[in-house]
């Protein structure tokens, strides 16, 4: 019994995927590819945050780029102030180079108040997580207590990311506008330097990705996870059992934003820049695409979707025109998945798995169902059981 359980745990898709993420560097030695893989894992973390928000709690956010970007900017501000360039501006305090360029000659150089606390790296890191989470909590409080739901949440979050993007570009003296923040110091924590092309950075990202994968799976198995599913099924009904639905939604939305902020932080560690292009509409829709194609209700699907789409995109980016063909293919795949496979490729996989082993299903049904549930939670539209009711 115990052995069986251990075997099942070892063979569960979660364990396999986590192991694969952690042993990949044994086979990939090229630092360029280590860096790329790290980037895809950052996007996987972003997709996980979307899977929590959309798949588990049923909130389709089209503005996750805002949280990702806020996290990235907070981290980048700290690393900018720690860079040699900023430290050697001839001022008693570190000063980003673009502020020097923007200050008219004759005027005193000073660090904008918004930048002052970011001289502390710990503050920058904490802000990268908490600023998106608090922002999401405020937005969530505003919309969910107002009874806004469904499509309107998507539209509001979409508008938010557009607003944030406009403001960041507009406030050029503080944010460096279109150019964003680059020339950053490498991330150095307690003496360990996370060189973006080195293994420590990869394992930092991979470790966090695996922890989140397992952590979110655990969250899904708690009563709170059950309530998220109930809220998704029938929000009104849940209220009459005494739950304040808005609180649950705010919780999921803020947690998701915090994870997106974490992804932004890791993005800066990996790519060493933050710019308006990583907090715009296209990244927000990209993360929805990865998650939808992988399977919105499957954490594994979200991770694999992000890895596969970004990996393939990169493979094709060698030649310029193929990238656009790839975007076209992605667009077509996305539409097809939304129309025909609402549970994404993970749902397709789970169905195939059940069809391929019909005899085993009869004998070992609970175990297999459990495994299928690990892959994805069934959605009624496609459930082949729904026909049974009439019979």
């Amino acid at each position, binding site marked *: 019994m115990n052995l069986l359980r251990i075997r099942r745990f070892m063979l569960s898709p979660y364990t396999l995927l986590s192991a694969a993420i952690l042993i990949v560097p044994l086979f990939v030695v090229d630092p360029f590819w280590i860096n790329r893989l790290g980037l895809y894992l950052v996007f996987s973390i972003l997709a996980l945050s979307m899977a929590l928000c959309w798949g588990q709690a049923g909130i*389709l956010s089209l503005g996750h780029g805002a949280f990702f970007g806020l996290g990235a900017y907070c981290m980048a501000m700290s690393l900018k102030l720690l860079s040699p360039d900023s430290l050697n501006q001839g001022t008693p305090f570190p000063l980003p180079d673009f502020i020097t360029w923007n200050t008219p000659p004759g005027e005193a150089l000073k660090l904008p108040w918004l930048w002052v606390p970011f001289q502390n790296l710990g503050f920058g890191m904490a802000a990268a997580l908490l600023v998106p989470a608090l922002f999401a909590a405020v937005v969530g409080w*505003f*919309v969910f207590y*107002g*009874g*806004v739901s*469904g*499509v*309107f949440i*998507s*539209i*509001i979050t*979409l*508008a*938010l990311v*557009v*607003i944030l993007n*406009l*403001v960041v*570009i*507009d406030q050029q003296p503080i944010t460096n506008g279109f150019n964003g923040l680059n020339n950053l110091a490498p991330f150095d924590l307690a003496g360990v330097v996370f060189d973006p092309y080195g293994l420590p950075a990869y394992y930092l990202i991979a470790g966090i990705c695996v922890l989140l994968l397992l952590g979110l799976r655990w969250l899904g198995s708690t009563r709170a996870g059950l309530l998220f599913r109930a809220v998704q099924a029938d929000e009104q009904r849940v209220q009459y059992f005494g739950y304040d639905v808005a609180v649950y939604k705010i919780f999921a939305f803020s947690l998701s934003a915090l994870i997106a902020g974490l992804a932004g932080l890791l993005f800066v560690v990996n790519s060493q820049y933050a710019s308006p292009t990583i907090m715009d*509409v296209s990244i927000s*829709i990209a993360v*929805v*695409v990865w998650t*939808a194609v992988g399977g919105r209700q499957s954490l594994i699907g979200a991770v694999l979707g992000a890895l596969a789409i970004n990996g393939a995109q990169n493979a094709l980016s060698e030649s310029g*025109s193929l990238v*656009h*063909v790839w*975007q*076209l293919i*992605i*667009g*077509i795949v*996305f*539409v097809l998945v*939304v*129309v025909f496979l*609402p549970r994404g490729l993970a749902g397709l996989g789970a169905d195939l798995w059940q069809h391929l082993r019909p005899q085993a299903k009869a004998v070992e049904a609970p175990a297999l169902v459990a495994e299928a549930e690990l892959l994805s939670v069934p959605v009624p*539209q496609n459930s082949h059981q729904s026909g049974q009711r009439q019979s």
Partner: protein
Amino acid sequence: MLGSLLSGLSIGSVLLLVALGLMVIYGTMGVINMAHGDLVMLGAYVTVFSQRLLHVPFLLCLPLAFVFTGSLGWLIERLIVRRLYSRLLDTLLATWGIGIILQQVIRLTFGPELQNVSVPVFLTGETRVGGIGMPSYRLAVFLVSVALLLGVVAILHRTDLGMRLRAVSQNPQISACHGIDVNQVRAWTFALGAGLAGAAGVMVSGFNAVRPTMGSSYVVDSFIVVVVGGVSSLAGTVASAALLGGVNSVMAWLTNDVLAKAVLLLLAIAVIRFFPKGLFSAQAR
């Protein structure tokens, strides 16, 4: 004063022009067509294409674009949107995907660079309106929006299709029971909305840069207009386009264009939160 009023009116007429197609689809079918902006973009490229290869005069591009994007809209409804009426959030995603596809197709055929559209000479100068000079093209945009608006009103309230459409938008099941082919009506409505987007694209191409990504800002703009105006009233859409045009020109005068846009979006969020039925919708039950 009159100048800023005219400028607001002119921005408002562009907003109305662009939002009209979205209004027809969203207001009557409840479908959020995220490909709307890209249909506008397609209309602009129809102008580029017909001018360059077919040497069609500018104003004739209007019906051309209307028919072209309209047929495309009809196809989109038949092939995709129709399967998703029970899943509203998925319609949003699927139409967004269609938008991505349209954008890439255009990028692959025309390239990512800016395209030029030549505007006929009689629309390039200034026209005196009440003693104030106004670019003739802006005036033309205003006239075209009003004409299209009147056209839509006529279709909705004077034709058989319009009558059936209003019935379907009230209650599809009962309409079907009374012998209305609901699927047909919806497909034609979608085609009408898409065609209006294309026509808007033609007018937009005359004063804005034509490029594959131009659609994304239009879909946001038009959605704001529709949401602020209230889902199911054309009059509300007109009022909201005028209001937002005014707010935009005042904010742009006070700060700059970018912040004006941000304020407009914040306003839209507040309206969704506090007036989910829009500012100008009739107090129905």
